[in-house]
């Protein structure tokens, strides 16, 4: 009954989204204010119905209603209650409903918080979101219905949730990631609405900025959580695999990062308009392409969903209409938009332009690396695969100039910068970075590794430069106490995000260089020495969980004879899906992780163990977190909440 109500709610949501797509748009062309005013209630209404549909699906999972195919295939009665809830978006069908709900949520938020916008623009933005919503709800309803029943023949027990997805990280990862993906739909809708009206001033940019920042924040968090999840759950200590599905989330992130920087230029200086609009279109287009790649089976990936050419076809047609249509509009309208402002070769505009170029190059590399196997095959040249070394090398070379520029850019003025005043502070910065990098290297007792040195150097450069710059700005207000409060939140946000990037670079370089990994054979009582740590296997015993069995190993870790910590690694056997999962034992410190995963049982009461010591691996996720917090701080900036009446406000310095 509840399941049917969910189906009905989704149908209502579809009807409302179709109305939302048509009515305000029509109203905007015939200048009918009443039709435009309908946009807000329609947007809020469809959100309520999407929410009801999702709740109905969660109910079906919680009550283990195995007459629903989706429940039978992705849950079981022995599954713990919290995983029963997350199982509701663990499958293709369920995750599509989650996607729809997130999109509906963003639409409702735009409807709620766009009072400052002119009615015409508001109506158009919501209508465009309505079009996208209608497309996705229709896909959910007609191509991949999460509520479909298998009556009269249904199983008495479900097939259980994929054990890979039974992890805390998995509870948070998909919703956060989807919030990011579909969040870019808002910036997309703003861009299309602006293309329709031909108005791209700094006020428009100021409206878009918080939405783009919010989407970017969620995407950053989502990617970071995914990486953390893979590290804990896949049992071999990796944190990024350049898998097509990961790349599908990384591409919109790169485009989104370029977008928030380009938006800054459009807001402050009124230039880069065609860039900004193109990036707003691209960020969402890449999210859609990503959804297509994951769900159509075009590429081989470890975590793509079960494939179905019908679904792929639908998504491709949708992609063609939405992205093709918007790019056509871009081609027809954008060439008439001119930028007024002029700037010199050495100016912040140029450096941010460089930022865009590098981020887009990175995006293009990921794009080509991901899709090259497909191109190659479809051109009849045979099968190839592109792996980690390609991406790693490309990103190694890209990061160096990118980070150098990043340290420089916040110091440089808009319009024009004289070189001379910067020489002294920058020599000091470079010296400080070099000292710090070499100091850390010396404490690691090896100076041979150039990747680590490069990473430390760049990290120190970006980090020190960001800190020094924010100190300088604070001093410019006169007293320090006054400066700290006067400097606006988005400036702190930028500084924090840049430091986050520095931390990330250091983390990647150090982990890549100094990770020590050993595969050992151990019996109870044996001790393995890895990178100065002594791992002693205390015992291995049988596990008995709710829906899994298996073995657990207890280890004691000592360093220089002193007891350090206790580790608990598991190897679970999930009974219903008959799969084996490793739950790695991790002892985390800011400077290093101790990582142990339990392997196969060997003859003679022994066990294969993989032991790793990974310096600075936490820094990778810490960097991601700092970037997200940076975005959050920037969002808190007062100027996004000020009622804008039409005239440009304060001369900006951020």
């Amino acid at each position, binding site marked *: 009954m509840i399941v049917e109500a969910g189906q009905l709610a989704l149908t209502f949501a579809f009807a409302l989204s179709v109305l939302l797509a048509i009515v305000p748009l029509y109203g905007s062309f015939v200048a009918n204010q009443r039709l435009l005013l309908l946009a807000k209630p329609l947007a809020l209404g469809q959100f309520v119905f999407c929410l009801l549909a999702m709740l109905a699906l969660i109910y079906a999972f919680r009550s283990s209603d195995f007459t629903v195919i989706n429940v039978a295939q992705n849950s079981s009665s022995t599954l713990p209650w919290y995983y029963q809830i997350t199982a509701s978006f663990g499958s293709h069908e369920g995750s599509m409903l989650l996607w729809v709900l997130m999109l509906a949520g963003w639409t409702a938020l735009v409807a709620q918080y766009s009072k400052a916008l002119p009615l015409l623009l508001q109506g158009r933005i919501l209508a465009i979101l309505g079009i996208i919503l209608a497309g996705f709800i229709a896909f959910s309803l007609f191509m991949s219905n999460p509520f479909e029943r298998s009556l009269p023949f249904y199983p008495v027990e479900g097939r259980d949730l994929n054990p890979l997805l039974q992890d805390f990280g998995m509870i948070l990862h998909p919703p956060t990631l989807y919030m990011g993906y579909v969040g870019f739909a808002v910036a997309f809708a703003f861009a299309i609405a602006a293309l329709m009206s031909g108005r791209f001033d700094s006020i428009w940019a100021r409206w878009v900025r918080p939405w783009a920042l919010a989407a970017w924040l969620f995407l950053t968090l989502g990617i970071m959580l995914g990486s953390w999840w893979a590290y804990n759950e896949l049992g071999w200590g990796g944190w990024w695999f350049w898998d097509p599905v990961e790349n599908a989330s990384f591409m919109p992130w790169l485009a989104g990062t370029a977008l928030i920087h380009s938006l800054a230029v459009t807001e402050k200086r009124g230039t880069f308009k*065609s860039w900004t609009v*193109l990036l707003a*279109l*691209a960020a969402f*287009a890449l999210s859609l*392409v990503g959804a*297509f790649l994951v769900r*159509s*089976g*075009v*590429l*081989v990936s470890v975590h793509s969903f079960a494939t179905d*050419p019908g679904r*792929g*076809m639908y998504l*491709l047609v949708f*992609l*063609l209409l939405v*992205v*093709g249509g918007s*790019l*056509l509009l*871009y*081609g027809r309208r*954008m*060439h008439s938009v001119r930028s007024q402002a002029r700037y010199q070769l050495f100016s912040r505009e140029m450096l941010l332009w460089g930022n865009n170029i590098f981020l887009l190059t990175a995006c293009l590399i990921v794009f080509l690396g991901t*899709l090259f*196997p*497909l*191109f190659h*095959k*479809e051109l009849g040249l*045979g*099968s190839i695969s592109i792996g980690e070394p390609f991406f790693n090398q490309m990103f190694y070379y890209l990061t160096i100039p990118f980070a150098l520029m990043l340290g420089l850019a916040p110091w440089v003025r808009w319009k024009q910068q004289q070189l001379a005043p910067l020489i002294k502070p920058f020599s000091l910065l470079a010296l400080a970075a070099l000292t710090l990098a070499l100091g850390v290297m010396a404490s690691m007792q090896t100076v041979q590794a150039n990747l680590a040195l490069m990473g430390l150097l760049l990290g120190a450069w970006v980090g020190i430069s960001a800190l020094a710059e924010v100190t300088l700005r604070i001093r410019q207000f006169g007293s320090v106490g006054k400066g700290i409060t006067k400097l606006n939140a988005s400036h702190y946000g930028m500084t924090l995000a840049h430091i986050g990037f520095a931390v990330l670079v250091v983390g990647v370089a150090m982990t890549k260089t100094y990770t020590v990994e050993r*595969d050992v*054979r151990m019996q109870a009582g044996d001790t393995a020495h890895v990178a100065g740590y002594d791992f002693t296997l205390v015992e291995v015993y049988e596990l008995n969980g709710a829906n899994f069995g298996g073995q657990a190993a207890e280890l004691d870790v000592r360093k220089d004879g002193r007891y350090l910590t206790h580790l608990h690694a598991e190897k679970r056997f999930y009974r219903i899906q008959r799969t084996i999962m490793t739950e790695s034992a991790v002892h985390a410190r800011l400077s290093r992780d101790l990582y142990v995963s339990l392997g196969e049982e*060997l003859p003679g009461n022994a066990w*294969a163990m993989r032991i790793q010591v990974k310096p600075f691996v936490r820094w990778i996720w810490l960097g991601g977190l700092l970037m997200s917090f940076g975005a959050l701080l920037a969002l808190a900036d007062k100027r996004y909440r000020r009622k804008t009446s039409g005239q440009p406000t304060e001369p900006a310095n951020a």
Partner: protein
Amino acid sequence: MRKVLFYVPLVLFLALALFLLSGLFSDPRERASAALDTALPDFALADLMQPQHIWTPEQLRGEAFLLNVWGTWCPTCNAELGYLTELRSQGVKIVGLYYELPRDPAFDAPFDLAVLQQDVTQKLAQHGNPYQFNILDLQRSLALDLGVSGAPETFIIDANGVVRAHHIGDINPQVWRTKLAPLYQQWSQP
């Protein structure tokens, strides 16, 4: 000129869409072996049961046959032994390429031919023996040259020693009828 520039994103996107469309209708996991339509790679490998006999491609010429990659460690291979034996009784010539798993010196016992022979004899007695003989690919070098990604896989080799077809996965009555039988017929014509 400036006007045209703004259509570049659209053109690039349409080109991409074309690839995605054609990608929808092909299986990314399907891979053609690079050895297809070329002569069998050169090898000199011992017979599994009579290790003093060394097999080379020249000795395999003269008659079309199936080269079946298998191992006793592979459950699917064991499952298809029965049907393959049936095919042998219908006159299909099948040669086994025994795929020995790599050994980890730290964890595994050293390779022992006598143990393996015993293992194989027992498995074949249990499920049926479809093989004229078995070639032991201890270092997996021939399997590598043929582009084997796992077991079971089967190649059709014609009378001139040219690799004509490559099948990944097991052979069951349906696969044989719809895919392999026509190919075998075609390439075993004198």
